[in-house]
């Protein structure tokens, strides 16, 4: 089944950054594979690390040497298709940053159940950062979850375990 049938991208369509790039620091991952007319990722990037080019329907290209890992594009992307990843140099943990528009809002230190691109549970993680770029996008949280390194290419969503969250 391809992604147009399932709604789920597989390794084939994705050009995920290599291990070395991930271990260098925060690295964005753009899961945007169709030529839709859209360019806020390019225009919002303060470092010029993302290029769409003259035709607004081009796919965005990332220059990893320029990306500072600020996360602005994660907040700006209308398709909620940009994530940010980081791996510890020793490979004992990883962090994935996810755009989030649901209630209840996650809190720092909270344990969550991590989910993959098809909504299946992967494992657990810990919320380590919750930010909001209010000036560029209201009511969209940018949430960083610390997870086992081997889960990094799978985890793209999370849910707060029932009974775990204080209302």
């Amino acid at each position, binding site marked *: 089944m391809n992604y147009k049938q399932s709604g789920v991208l597989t390794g084939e369509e994705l050009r995920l950054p290599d291990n070395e790039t991930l271990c260098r620091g925060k690295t964005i991952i753009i899961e945007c594979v169709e030529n839709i007319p859209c360019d806020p990722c390019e225009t919002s990037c303060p470092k010029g690390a993302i290029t769409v080019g003259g035709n607004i329907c081009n796919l965005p290209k990332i220059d990893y040497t320029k990306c500072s890992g600020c996360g602005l594009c994660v907040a700006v992307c209308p*398709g909620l298709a940009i994530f940010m990843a980081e791996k510890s140099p020793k490979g004992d943990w990883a962090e994935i940053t996810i755009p989030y528009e649901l209630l209840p809002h996650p809190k720092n230190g909270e344990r969550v159940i991590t989910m993959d691109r098809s909504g299946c549970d992967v494992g657990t993680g810990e919320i380590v950062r919750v930010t909001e770029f209010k000036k560029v996008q209201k009511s969209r949280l940018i949430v960083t979850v610390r997870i086992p390194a081997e889960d990094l290419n799978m985890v793209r969503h999370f849910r707060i375990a029932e009974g775990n969250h204080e209302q």
Partner: protein
Amino acid sequence: MALKINKCDILIIGGGPAGLEAAYHAAKAAPGLKISIVEENFLLGGQLIKQTHSFFGSKNQFAGKRGFEIAELLMDRVRKNPDIDIHLQTSALGCYEGGIVACESMAEGCLKEFQPGRTIVAAGARENMAPFPGNDLPGVFGAGAAQTLMNVYGVLPGRKVVMLGAGNIGLIVSYQLMQAGAEVLAIIEGLPMIGGYHVHAAKIRRMGVPILASHTVVRATGKSTLEEVEVAPIDKNWKIAGESTVFQADTLCLAVGLTPGTELLEQSGCRMAFVKELGGHVAWHNDRMETSRPEILVAGDVSGIEEASTAMLEGKIAGLAAAEGLSGLDLSDEISRAQQELAGIRKGPYGEKACLGKDKLCKLSVR
């Protein structure tokens, strides 16, 4: 019923994104022209006021802003212009000789007659029905209706939802239902492929909502309101090809396309054409949005089903073309810039259908 005569130069029928942009740009380009907008609903902004997702496009098309925020912006600049007056709860009934348009004001309980120099029909579209037993049960909504209830009025249509249609509307409304606290049990799609943007599908898939391609709704049942939705796999000839699954649901949303709301255009004698890529019958029009009747223009979904960003640009083009015709000003540069912008956002694979449809229309003769 009392009759009120209203004088205006440009009458715009429909206060959605196309109509609002037509009014704003016409008034801006040719100050002094009197412009009236008639809108059937008691709220301005059309279907834009219920869109909570961020828009694509570029800065010119308000990319990144949520639909309802764009609506506020468009409404605000129209309300601020003293040359534009707005008639809410007013339905256009007919377009007659000499360009006279008769309207009924439900708010004032009177008839209103307009005699504009140009009329821009931006009446939008209506949601399609899907044929299956039980499709008229309360609890079976157009997906847009469910969206209106929850995003405009803050009323949840139901708790357990099945969505029929995996085009952009089906995917977006499913996501918004989940945001509002409902549970979407499944998205059913008759075609073997998801029709909407992958990014919309990805958002709802990672939340655990299944999308069943090559499936259809067999029937909806319930005593006085919806209780169960029966779904079955189908083959490429749309014949049932496997065992049914029954979902216990109180809500079934139909997102199976839109049909342009062309009654007024047909009635007024505009040349009509059936173009399936545009959603059915539409009024013939050129790239300045002018129809076969020189005083009538079209913009937005009524001229072919697309989306809000293209509707806004079509509205702008129609507004400028109408203003040019009445004022004698040369607005051709501005019109061609808007046309280029429109062509730009139709460039990708998702714009192909609209381009094909508009091309087909252009190849037909005016008469």
